[in-house]
């Protein structure tokens, strides 16, 4: 069981992911854009982060870099509709540990969290 920060601008997606993570016994905290994600991360130090990319205010790749700059041990997986290879490579180079493309399967999301906290 882990404390997971779920970052997505779509409230529906946060609700859906939170439900499946909570069913597995994880504690879920949320942020609706990259800027908020950085603030919530620093304030709450979650064990793992699931990060969307396409978001207003600050996108997920920038938030990933900011979080990793402040905490080199931050464990972040991208969870996004943007599955282009160039973006996967950019995310991995920026420190993402995993990359899950939407539409996602429940097991794939749980596996990503298990990998982050394992």
């Amino acid at each position, binding site marked *: 069981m882990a404390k997971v920060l779920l970052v997505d601008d779509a409230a*529906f997606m946060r609700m859906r992911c939170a439900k499946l993570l909570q069913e597995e016994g994880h504690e879920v905290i949320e942020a609706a854009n990259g800027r908020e994600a950085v603030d919530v991360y620093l304030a709450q130090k979650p064990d793992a982060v699931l990060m969307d990319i396409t978001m207003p*205010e600050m996108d997920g790749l920038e938030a990933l870099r900011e979080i990793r700059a402040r905490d080199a041990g931050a464990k972040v997986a991208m969870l996004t509709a*943007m599955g282009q290879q160039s973006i996967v490579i950019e995310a991995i180079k920026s420190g993402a540990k995993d990359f899950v*493309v939407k539409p996602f399967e429940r097991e794939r999301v749980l596996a990503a969290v298990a990998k982050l906290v394992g």
Partner: protein
Amino acid sequence: MQVELINVFIKAAMDVLRSETGEEPSAGSIKVLSSAQTSEEVTVMIGVTGDVRGMVLLGMSERTAKGIVSRMMGEPCPLFDELAQSGIAEMGNVITGLATQGLEQAGYGAVISPPALVAGGPGIIISTVNIRRFVVPLHCGVGDLVLHAALELAPATSQHGHSNGRAVVAPGVFGI
């Protein structure tokens, strides 16, 4: 804009509808429009920038939107409230995001804006002004949708600009 690139969007829409609703969708024939178009009751709008640029619209009735959200949640969706609107907008985001993978495979880099949702139609004009619009009806067990792709290739300069190496979210002019 070649029809092959429009097919990338049709395939993405079919893949996402199949995965989210559990129904096998089908696509009708492609029409080309250049005029302003009255919207359906609900329209998701997503901006595309990069080597391919313009806008993708996904229109449907409110009943279809609620039917899709209900399948996505695995429970009834009696009201088209903020959460349901977020769900249908996100489906548009996932379709367009998936299409950008197909565009990348065809050699075109593109990024998308966060989705915006227009409800309260029909009767609202959503014009894509000077970009030709490809319109494709999509049929699905939960209802019918219309995919509009008003897209064009960017001038050659940006094709040499490696926009596909950059993952910057398009300016939030359409943001919600």
